[in-house]
């Protein structure tokens, strides 16, 4: 048995997506850990921004809020929400990490409610926050989430944040900025992308210890499969030591 947990695996896999010189808007928790890991491991020039206004900090420890002082620690700029979101809307931001209670085959996300009555929901979640904005504006949306068939749902009960909407060219027709959209979905079991024509979710790699069948069995809709499905590489000793010793020594995000 390899010596890492699923959260560590997801964070390391996600970090490898972020190339040197790219820009990213992140939230708290695992996405923040992935961006910090990328910066320390292989992308020293990754520009990290926070929607509340923090720009290019030297993050000393993981923030609790995307607006707390850690997001401006030795930063290049302490700005505001319009500054960050408009930098995204202008086309300067390559990546963002988002998540939700539900995700469908087109990468649409629900973080608003469960239950049919909008004014009296069964479960009320926070809503969009900046997620809808970032998914609309940033070139590539990444999702990092544990996989189960409830979360990977046939239909989102509420589309808070746009993925490829109803697939095909529906997103381009909606009026959202052209060329931006969901890019990769990173779970504890696999990495998925989106088939270019239909924009449906597609398995491109499975994690060590999982099969394509495991991935499909833990998904509420039919997944497409890439011609060649690779086995994803486990975290390296170097990645794990950076993650455990420098980024999350108190194991808030990576857990025990």
């Amino acid at each position, binding site marked *: 048995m390899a010596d890492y947990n699923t959260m560590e695996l997801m964070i390391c896999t996600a970090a490898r997506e972020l190339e040197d010189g790219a820009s990213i808007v992140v939230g708290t928790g695992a996405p923040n850990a992935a961006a910090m890991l990328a910066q320390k491991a292989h992308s020293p020039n990754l520009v990290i921004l926070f929607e509340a206004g923090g720009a290019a900090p030297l993050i000393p420890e993981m*923030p609790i*809020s995307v607006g*707390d002082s850690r997001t401006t620690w030795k930063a290049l700029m*302490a700005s505001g929400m319009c500054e960050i979101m408009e930098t995204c809307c202008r086309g300067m931001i390559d990546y963002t990490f988002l998540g939700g209670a539900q995700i469908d085959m087109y990468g649409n996300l629900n973080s608003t409610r469960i239950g049919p009555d909008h*004014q009296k929901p069964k479960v009320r979640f926070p809503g*969009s926050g900046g997620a809808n904005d970032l998914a609309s*504006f940033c070139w590539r949306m990444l999702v990092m989430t544990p996989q189960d068939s409830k979360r990977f749902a046939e239909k989102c009960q509420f589309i808070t944040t*746009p993925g490829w909407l109803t697939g095909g060219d529906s997103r381009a027709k909606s009026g959202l900025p052209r060329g931006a959209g969901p890019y990769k979905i990173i779970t504890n079991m696999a990495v998925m992308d989106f088939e270019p024509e239909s924009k449906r979710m597609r398995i491109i790699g499975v994690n060590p210890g999982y099969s394509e069948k495991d991935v499909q069995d833990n998904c509420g809709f039919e997944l497409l499969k890439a011609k060649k499905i690779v086995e994803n590489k486990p975290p390296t000793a170097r990645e794990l030591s950076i993650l455990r010793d420098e980024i999350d020594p108190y194991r808030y995000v990576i857990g025990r």
Partner: protein
Amino acid sequence: MESIEQGIGKIFTDPDPDNARAFFRTKSRKLESKVMSVKEAVEKFVHDGDYLTLGGFGANRVPIAVAHEIVRQGRKNMGFAGHTSTHDFQILCAGEVFNRVDVAYIVGLEARGLSPNARRYMESGKVEVSEWTNYSLSVRFKAAAAGVSFYPARNMMGTDTFKYSGAKIIECPFTGTRYVAQPALYPDVSAIHVHEADIYGNCRARGITVSDFDVARASKRLIITCERLIANDEIRRDPSYTVIPYWCVDAVCEVPYGSYPGNMYAEYFSDEEHIREWMKTEEDPVEFKKFLEKNIYSCKDHFEYIEKNGGINKLLKLRDKEFMFVKARD
């Protein structure tokens, strides 16, 4: 201009710029002291039914003293801008202060999890909601601050967030590009916590600005709480630091540690222990009632609240933590 599509959500405030201009015409431009207590400011400027905005970012540079005072004075039937509201939202839910909310981010406290009591209140059916996003509310304030009735943005299209909003989709007369027209939001009253202000209300703030400078200009009435009052001479010595001018401001209240238990940039970090206690206690409504009695209703002011939760020793620790001094974690 005709709209291509429109949401079914309500617009809770009047976006008309001429109605706003008529109000701002009557607002005082007199350079006079506006210093008063938080109690007086809330009595004078926050009314039942008003639409309220709180500055900052949930638990960062938030006007906590004003939020507590609004609950203490029992304001009801208010409208509220749920613009990245976290601990502030939790406080207002505890007092069941509002019955309508423009939602961008509510109920949650980011990495800390969801507030059980805020969830109960929002799932009770007592609160009418319109859905928006963080950027949407930012530009709704920006439109109001600019004295226009909407701002075009490229978000929300194709989603249920748009469907349950009060926005409309329009086409650019130059390029044909589609935009979501975000209606201007002029709050009746807002409160913003800053680092420094003079007695007239000229303000300085450090760290991230969120949407506060637009909120200040968009609001009909504005309560400023500040860590420190500073001399007007200091403002005039270097006006480049002034971020909110006095003519936007109706009340200036000196409240050191006014963002506690939230974070204040370059002053003190958030009291995570106390915020955890809030969230934990909320699980049991009976216990939570006692908790509120102790921390809000029986407190004379913000200082009494802080005294009950560790006083100066706690604040010094939070200062160490903000600057990451040695052992600040303990």
